[in-house]
């Protein structure tokens, strides 16, 4: 019930921005949506599966380039380009996940960061394709409302995907990997297959999102495509909102973006540091982020309700 209420609130707010907002509000919201999608995507592998990593911008960046090249040379519509970028993300994620997900903990996290730097270097060097450091320019999209709508729907899709994961046995098995991969494997859970699936589920939206972001900017260059700041911001948002929770990524992204706007205008020199301090404080004092606070004060239900509800319905639960 509360979930539907949240969906309705989201739809109403999103519509309000289009109907009553100015260009600034539209741009702010588009960029916020990009982060919401990235945060939800990262939460699947980093939050639910416990494979935190610093390489999501690989998919974002490659998606951005695939999208821009299709729009530029083949004159594709941004929507088709974004779908193709998602496909490219999948094609990259499956083999990459297969190889890299053998690594654990910091080794996995850092090697994916290294990989992103490799992609960045390649896109710098491969002038003929990427325009190198100059980047590639697209004819700008004047009316960005459809782009906005597409991103809003993508956010909604990520929220629903996460809701499903949280309430399914697929999600429980991802969390079993997070809690004790060896035990999960011993109990017949196909850990490799599940990890690659989770990795792909996080790569596809990130890549599609990269293409949409590039369409929004009408521009892409290596530092924008593979930006470490976006990587870190995404992860900070998930930690802030609540790792491995349904609403955490959205709450984290919105809180972070608002905080950012407030601090940026008032303390232009200090704002990065201040944002960092707020994130550190939140992670230290709320291990499951803002969501845990809301759950404790009974504003939202704890996650993974499906099995509790089935048990209650079976009539034998205590």
């Amino acid at each position: 019930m509360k979930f539907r209420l949240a969906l309705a609130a989201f739809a109403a707010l999103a519509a309000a921005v289009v109907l009553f907002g100015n260009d600034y509000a539209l741009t702010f919201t588009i960029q916020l949506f990009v982060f919401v999608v990235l945060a939800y995507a990262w939460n699947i592998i980093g939050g639910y599966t416990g494979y935190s990593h610093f390489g999501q911008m690989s998919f974002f960046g490659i998606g951005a380039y695939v999208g821009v090249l299709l729009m530029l040379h083949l004159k594709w519509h941004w929507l088709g380009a974004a779908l193709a970028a998602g496909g490219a993300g999948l094609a990259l994620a499956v083999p990459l996940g297969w190889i890299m997900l053998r690594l654990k903990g910091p080794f996995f996290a850092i090697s994916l960061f290294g990989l992103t730097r490799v992609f960045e270097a390649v896109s710098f060097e491969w002038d003929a394709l990427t325009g190198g450091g100059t980047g590639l320019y697209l004819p700008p999209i004047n009316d960005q409302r459809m782009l906005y709508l597409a991103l809003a729907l993508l956010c909604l899709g990520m929220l629903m995907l996460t809701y499903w994961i949280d309430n399914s046995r697929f999600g429980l098995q991802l969390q079993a990997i997070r809690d004790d991969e060896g035990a999960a494997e011993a109990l017949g859970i196909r850990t490799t297959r599940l990890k690659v699936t989770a990795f792909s589920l996080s790569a596809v939206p990130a890549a599609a999102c990269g293409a949409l972001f590039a369409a929004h900017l009408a521009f892409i260059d290596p530092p924008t495509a593979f930006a470490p700041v976006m990587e870190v911001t995404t992860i900070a948002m998930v930690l802030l909102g609540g790792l491995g929770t349904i609403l955490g990524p959205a709450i984290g992204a919105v809180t972070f973006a608002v905080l950012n706007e407030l601090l940026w205008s008032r303390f232009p020199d200090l704002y990065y540091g201040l944002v960092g301090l707020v994130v550190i404080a939140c992670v230290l004092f709320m291990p499951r982020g803002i969501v845990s606070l809301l759950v404790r004060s009974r504003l939202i239900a704890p996650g993974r309700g499906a099995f509790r509800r089935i048990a209650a319905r079976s009539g034998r639960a205590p």
Partner: protein
Amino acid sequence: MTQPLLHVEDAVKRFGGRTALDGAHCSVATGSITGMIGPNGSGKSTLFNCIAGAEALDSGAVYLRGARIDRLAPHAICERGVARTFQLTRLFRDMTVLENLVAVAHTFSDRQAVERAIHAMELLEIPELMHRPAGDLSYGQRKLVEIGRTLMLEPKLMLLDEPFAGINPRLQNRIVGYLQKLRGEGMTLFIIDHEMRIILDVCDSVWVLAEGRIVMNGPPQAVRSDPRVIEAYF
């Protein structure tokens, strides 16, 4: 003699310079309750780890119904009907007890999985723990949840590594009764425990391991009166 369900041959496993298994063998007859005893550090858990695929043997072989299963991934061995518990429990600690059980059930619908989990929890007398996070449970309770988790898999062979440690005698007896019932329904059980009273009471056959080798095997009466076992245990 009919083919045993499980057969281990010349199992050797070294950890660095330490030889945990030094040519151990054993077999478990279909439909039996088979026990394994041995002093601390004699290699019992290592043997289970090698059977379940968590550790790779340095040499030797494991056969399940005559087919080799060493070299298979743990999940593949599990899919062939072998489920295990861990001596030091390894529950999914951020999940509730119910979720721990439901997570490993692959073949049922969600509703069937939940019903099965509730059934298992009732048998183990822990339905009130259903929604408690596994990380909050006592040692004995965690042991019970581990047994419950293997029950979800409807295995042909259950490997139980010290299932009775830390569980009160009344519940121990109940679990024994329940394991015997499972055996009656066709399940085979292979149990490591230091609880001699139970091992000698319920097992059809007992293997005695010392320093990575089998030093004796036989029915409980024979094991009970063997001087080497008496020396080690009584």
